[in-house]
């Protein structure tokens, strides 16, 4: 299940965000939304998960003849 972990430092008000469970560029949508609301981040670093590609494996069907 996709999850976004937010941390807010109450001594500064600074917000940190970590997107998990969304491989590939799909997590860019979440990052884009956050940038719309917060502005450009001071730091932005894609995690290893970001570089994973989503693969769809075709299913093979077997038919048995009677």
């Amino acid at each position: 299940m996709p999850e976004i972990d937010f941390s807010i430092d109450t001594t500064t008000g600074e917000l940190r965000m970590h997107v998990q469970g969304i491989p590939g560029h799909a997590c860019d949508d979440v990052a884009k939304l956050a940038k719309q609301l917060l502005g450009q981040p001071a730091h932005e670093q894609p995690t290893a998960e970001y570089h994973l590609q989503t693969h769809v494996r075709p299913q093979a069907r077997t038919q048995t003849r009677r």
Partner: protein
Amino acid sequence: MSKYLTFPDVLFKDRRLLLAALTDIGFPIVEEGRELPLYGYQGDRRSEAADIVVRRQHIGRASNDLGFVRTPDGYVPIVSEFDRRTLLGGDFLVRLRTAYSEQVVQEVRRRVHGTAIRRLEGQTIKIAVRY
């Protein structure tokens, strides 16, 4: 007399979330317009102007108006030196940034149709949004 200070590094991108954050920390009544004049605690008009203003009547007897100037990058606060030192125990801007950050999290949660679990760890608010 206290002078006004502008904080260009403290930026609030979204007007609606800024208003919600102000409400959260106890300032629900604001004036909005273009280049509204700011007044000091004695009713003296200052040279500064802002687009969102919390009037001193809604802050405290010794306070000056608080303002936010709209810029292409977002809203920038203008706070008097006196209020920066005294308002909310001198934590006005930090409390506002924290409240704004919480509003951002709630907005993201709404847009992704997620659920949020919030907890406090020391001085850090941790919020997990699942969807």
